[in-house]
């Protein structure tokens, strides 16, 4: 059996202390295989984003462990964590997080700039990513001047530009109308099918969840089955 690219081992996460303490995750175990598309589904406040942040190594679990290709991520140094997030992961957050007053191309190439890739190489790869999302003609526009759907495509281009192995998408269609949402979904699944990128989608939209290979349901910080019963 292949080693899962990411795995959660009885992960618990609580925020705050004492009386204000809140257990957002109460013991979640999960394997994500290389190349699969998986959705994390649940109501608002159920702990989806929290789980995604832990899997994306943006945060550390209170107890339990997250494994990256079989290795305990808690044991990795800050530098390696940064490099992993920069080169292995691509992010589509719940909001666009585009830098205002900066060109579309500059927004897209941010991960490359962080990686220290040189200017011309950065431009080439940025344009390539924009072309894949049919936004090459907007490269010089200000990111804030685009429509919602275009912005989300820019965000996806930014997530793709460093050719990651895993893409995390938190509510990728949450801010979009149905038609634009469908286009964005199509782009993501197409990537997963054609390039074998592992796709981790966080959503409360069951229709979107149905399009992934597999869905994991979360309720009140626990993995449940489709009907909401504890798994």
């Amino acid at each position, binding site marked *: 059996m292949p080693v899962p690219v990411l795995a959660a081992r009885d992960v618990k996460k609580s925020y705050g202390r004492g009386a204000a303490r809140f257990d957002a995750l109460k013991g979640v175990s999960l394997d994500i295989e290389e190349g699969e598309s998986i959705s994390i589904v649940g109501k608002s406040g159920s702990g989806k984003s929290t789980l995604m*942040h832990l899997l*994306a190594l*943006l*945060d550390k679990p209170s107890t339990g462990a997250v494994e990256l290709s079989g290795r305990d991520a808690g044991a990795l140094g*800050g*530098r390696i*964590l*940064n*490099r*992993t*997030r*920069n*080169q292995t992961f691509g*992010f589509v*957050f719940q*909001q666009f*997080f585009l*830098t205002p*007053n900066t060109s579309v191309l500059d927004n897209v190439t*941010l*991960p490359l*700039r*962080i*990686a*220290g890739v*040189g200017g011309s190489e950065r431009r080439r790869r940025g344009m390539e990513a924009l072309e894949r999302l049919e936004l090459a003609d907007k490269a010089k526009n200000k990111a804030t001047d685009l429509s919602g759907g275009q912005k989300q495509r820019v965000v996806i281009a930014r997530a793709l530009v460093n050719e990651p192995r895993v893409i995390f998408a938190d509510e990728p269609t949450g801010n979009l109308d149905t038609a634009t949402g469908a286009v964005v979904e199509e782009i993501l699944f197409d990537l997963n099918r054609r390039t074998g990128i592992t796709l981790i989608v966080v959503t409360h939209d069951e229709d979107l969840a149905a399009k992934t290979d597999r869905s994991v349901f979360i309720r009140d910080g626990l993995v449940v089955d489709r009907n909401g019963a504890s798994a």
Partner: protein
Amino acid sequence: MSGLDLIRSAISNTFRSKTRTTLTVLAIFIGAFTLALTSGVGTGINRYIDTTVSSIGANDVMTVTKTVEDTASGPAKYEPDTTNVESATGRPGSTVEAITAAELDDIRAVPGVESVDPVLTARPNYVEYDGGTQYQAAIGGFVSGMSLDLAAGSEPSSDSDTLEVALPVSYVEPLGFSSDSDAVGKTVTFGVTDQTGASSTIEATVTGVAEAGLLGSSSLTANDALTTALYDAQSVGLSSSSKDSYASVSLRFDPASSDEQVSAIKSDLKELGYDATTVEDQIGSFKTIIDAIVLVLNGFAVIALIAAGFGIVNTLLMSVQERTREIGLMKAMGMGAGRVFGLFSLEAVFIGFLGSAIGALGAILAGTALNGVLANGLLSALPGLTLIAFDPTSIAVIILVVMGIAFLAGTIPALRAARQDPIESLRYE
């Protein structure tokens, strides 16, 4: 992020909020402008003193006089075997105890002394050119190693046997020369009256024309040969003991001597009953005062800069606040805390650089304009003086100091940015 990209991003971030950056840069500008200007005044005046010093005398020369006895405890007793001569430097008519020819040998014997020459005071009655109007003439000696601020020609040669003199610019026209360079090479005549009342004349060649300095602006500079000739002519009829009595003597020491060696010579002379002062001693206290004034002025400028530093803290804190999400995103995408810190402190340093570079440039322009105005107005009597002078090192130091202050100010916001938790920042709406 590569270092170059970091700098580039920091610079472009600086210009994102133009109003805020402009105001902060303005605050730094004021401080840097003042600092550059005040230290420019210090440089200008000290440079002027230095050139003046080299025209007063060489730096390996001491002027030696007999120690004046403390008169606070009553008048000094008369010693029959001493001679008093008119003081060269004191009140008119005041006398000092003279140094005799025999005593010169005592001074020569002090270790470290290379040569001792009496300072001869030549007092010609007048100077004239080509039978023209006669003018009063004060003569200053020329010691080799001394340098004149020349308007034309060259300095009188101290080794030469020919009688040579340098005229101050103010004598050129009255004597009847058409220009500074016209005077060079011409022969002027000095009139001397000796102790018996007889008059004689001595001719000397003009080798150069000197700009008026801070000191001795109206005296003629004679070489040794001319001074001696004039002295001999005016001393005819004087007893040889009074002829060979001098108010002061000039002493030369090895120019490579250390400060300790120089003060050793001084204390040896003190024991023998002589006061010795170097040119540096004479001018040193003046410089100390200038330096103190400039220091106080610089202090004010630095206070202004520190206030501007708080402006930087404020600007960058606002900028960190505004860019919370951007910082969170960059950290989420794998930018290390060190780099984030670097990004913001570079931004601070760049703001500091902008303010100080523009401030220094403004000060140079304002200083140059002011010099022009002053040279024709208030300071026209001191032609050699450039009140505000800028030297590249002190400008560079000012810019670096301001950048340093900016960096320190930037550490507070930069640390805040570097410590930001990416998830917290991305949650922020």
